[in-house]
C-alpha cells in the first residue's frame, strides 16, 4: 500500500472513457492557451507593441491607395467590383491577412517555440495527442489576432471613419469562423515544417510572400493573371476577404455567397485532413530521427 500524498484517489488519471478524455483534452487546450498568454505577458512592452503593429503595418497601404487616387474613392475600383471606398476595401483585406499571417507565423512557430524553451519533449511526453497542443497554441494566436483587429478597427474608425453595413457583421463572422478551421490545417503544416527544417522561417516567409501577392487584399481578384486567381481560390482567406467585403461594403464577387461558403467548407476538410496527416508523418519522423529536442 503506498502513501503518496493527499487527493490520491482524486488524482487517478488513468481514465479512458470518451467524456473524460474529451474533458481532459479540452483542459489541455485551455491550459496551453493560458500558458502562452502568461508567457506573452511577461514581456508587457512587447505585448503593447504587438497591438500597435497592425495599425503601423496597415497605414502605408491605405495612404498609398489614397496617393494613387488623389482621395478616398476610386472610380476604377467601382468599375471592377462595384464599390468605391478604398479605405474600407483595403482595411478589410488587411484585417483578414492578419489571420493568414497568424497561421503561417504564430501557429507555424508554436512547436518551434517549445523547442526553443526546451519543453517540447516534456510536453510531448504527456498523455495527450500531440496535435492537441497546436490547438491550444492556435487558440492563443486567434484570441491575440482578434485583439489586434479590435485595435486596428478602432483606429481606422477614429481616423478614417469606416463605412460598413452593420447587418453584414454576423455573416462575416460566420465566414471567419469557417475560415479559421481551414487555417488551423495550414498552421499544422507550418508547425510540422518548422519542426523538420531548422530554417523553417524561410518556408513561412516564402509562402507568406507568395500568398500576399495572390490574395486579393488591396485589390480585387480580377486584376490578377488567371493562374494567380486559380491559386488564390485554394486559400481560405481569399473567400474570407471577398465575402466579408461583400457583406460589409457590397463587393461583387463573381460567385454566389453559397458557393463561397461551400468552397470554404471543402477547404476546411482538405486543409485540416492534410494538416493532421503531415503532422502525424513529421511527428513520427522526428521521433525516429531523434531531432525532437534539437533547436
Amino acid at each position, binding site marked *: 500500500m503506498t502513501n503518496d*500524498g493527499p487527493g490520491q484517489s482524486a488524482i487517478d488519471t488513468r481514465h479512458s472513457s470518451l467524456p473524460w478524455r474529451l474533458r481532459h483534452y479540452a483542459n489541455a487546450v485551455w491550459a496551453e492557451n493560458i500558458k502562452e498568454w502568461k508567457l506573452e505577458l511577461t514581456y508587457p512592452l512587447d505585448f503593447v507593441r504587438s497591438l500597435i503593429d497592425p495599425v503601423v503595418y496597415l497605414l502605408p497601404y491605405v495612404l498609398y491607395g489614397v496617393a494613387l487616387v488623389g482621395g478616398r474613392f476610386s472610380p476604377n475600383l467601382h468599375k471592377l467590383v462595384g464599390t468605391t471606398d478604398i479605405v474600407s476595401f483595403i482595411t478589410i483585406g488587411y484585417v483578414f491577412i492578419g489571420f493568414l499571417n497568424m497561421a503561417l507565423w504564430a501557429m507555424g512557430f508554436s512547436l518551434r517555440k517549445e523547442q526553443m524553451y526546451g519543453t517540447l519533449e516534456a510536453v510531448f511526453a504527456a498523455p495527450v495527442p500531440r496535435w492537441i497542443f497546436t490547438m491550444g497554441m492556435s487558440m492563443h494566436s486567434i484570441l491575440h489576432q482578434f485583439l489586434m483587429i479590435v485595435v486596428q478597427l478602432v483606429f481606422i474608425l477614429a481616423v478614417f471613419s469606416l463605412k460598413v453595413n452593420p447587418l453584414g457583421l454576423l455573416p462575416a463572422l460566420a465566414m471567419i469562423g469557417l475560415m479559421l478551421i481551414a487555417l488551423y490545417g495550414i498552421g499544422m503544416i507550418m508547425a510540422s515544417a518548422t519542426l523538420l527544417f531548422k530554417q523553417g522561417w524561410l518556408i513561412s516567409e516564402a509562402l507568406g510572400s507568395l500568398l500576399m501577392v495572390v490574395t486579393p487584399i488591396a485589390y480585387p481578384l480580377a486584376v490578377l493573371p488567371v493562374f494567380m486567381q486559380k491559386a488564390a481560390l485554394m486559400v481560405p482567406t481569399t473567400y474570407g476577404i471577398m465575402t466579408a467585403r461583400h457583406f460589409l461594403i457590397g463587393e461583387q464577387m463573381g460567385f454566389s455567397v453559397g458557393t463561397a461558403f461551400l468552397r470554404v467548407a471543402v477547404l476546411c476538410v482538405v486543409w485540416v485532413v492534410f494538416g493532421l496527416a503531415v503532422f502525424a508523418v513529421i511527428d513520427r519522423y522526428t521521433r525516429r530521427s531523434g531531432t525532437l529536442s534539437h533547436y
Partner: protein
Amino acid sequence: MNEERTPALEVQSVVKNFRRGRGLKKKITRAVDGATLTLPRGELFGLLGPNGAGKTTLVRCIATLLIPDAGTIKVLGHDAFKDSLYCRQRIGLLTSGERTLYWKLSARDNLNFFAALYGLTGKAREKRIDYLIELLGLKDVERERLERYSSGMKQKVSLARAILHNPDLILLDEPSLGLDPQFARFIRQFIKEELNQKQGKTILLTTHYMDEADELCQRIAFINKGKIVNVKTPEQYKRDIPHTEVLEIRLQGQPEVAPIQTLPGVERIASEFKDGVTTLKVVAPRAEAVLSEAIEHLRKGGRILGIDIKQPTLEDVFLYETGTSLGADTSEQKPEVQ
C-alpha cells in the same frame, strides 16, 4: 492479466540508430544495441554508463519520445508504441538539461500547466501541487519565476512535474547532474526514501555517478556503447570479481600508458586525463605484483604524483567489465552500422 504480477517495464532487444552527417557523408551510428531488461514493480533500477553510452536514448525510447528501430517496450504490459497514450499516462519523466521548464513562469504556473496535460483538474490539482511544493521545500519560492532559481531548485520543480500525476513508472535521467552536493544529496534521498521506499514507485534511474548507483539502486545495468553488458545487484558485482585489486597511479601530463596492458598479471587498464593529471587504473589480482614494473615504465614518461592500492568499487567493476572508465565520453565511439 494479473496486474500485480505484470512487470512495470519490459524492454526487449531494443535497437536505435541515428543518422549523422550530411549528404553522401551520412553515417549511421547505433546508439542502443539490443537492450533488454525487465523491471518488476517497486524496483529502483539503475542504468550506469559513461557519457554517450546510450542511457538517455533508451530512456527517451521508453518515454515514447523516440521510436526504436527494432525491439519492443512494454509499460505495465502495454506496448509503448501501439498504446502510447496509456503508457504516457503511467510514466513520469525527468530529463537532463537545464532548459526543460518555462523559465518565465513560476513553479506553480509550470506545475499547473503540466497538471492539466496529465488530466488533473480542479481542487485535486491544487491539493496535489500544494503537497508537492511543500514536500520538495519550494513553498517560499513557488510564485517566483524559474529564471531566478538555482539549478537545484529547478531540478526540484522538474522532479515535482515528473511525479505530479502519481505515475507507476518514473524515468529519471541523470537527476543529480550538475547539482551541488547539498541538492544532489536531497534528490537522492528523496528518490530512495520518499519515492521508492515510502511510495513504492518503480524507478529507472540513469547515471554516470558510481556512488549514486551504488547508494540508490537495487539492481544496476552496466551500459556501454549502446549495449547492456550486465545486470546485477551492487553486491553481486563486487563479489563477482574477487581476488582483484585496483592499482591507481596519478601522473603529471599525458604519458603513454597502453604498454601497461601487456604487463603480466594485468587484466584491464583505463586512464582518464583531467586538469593536467592522468589517473591510470590497473586491475590485477595482486596490484603489488605489477606495481614495480608499471612504475618503471611510467617514470620514463612523466612525474608520478601518487599511488594507491584499493579494493574495487563499482566504478572499478565497470572498468573491469567494459574496459571503459565511467568518466569517459564515449559519444564518438558508437559503432557504425554499415
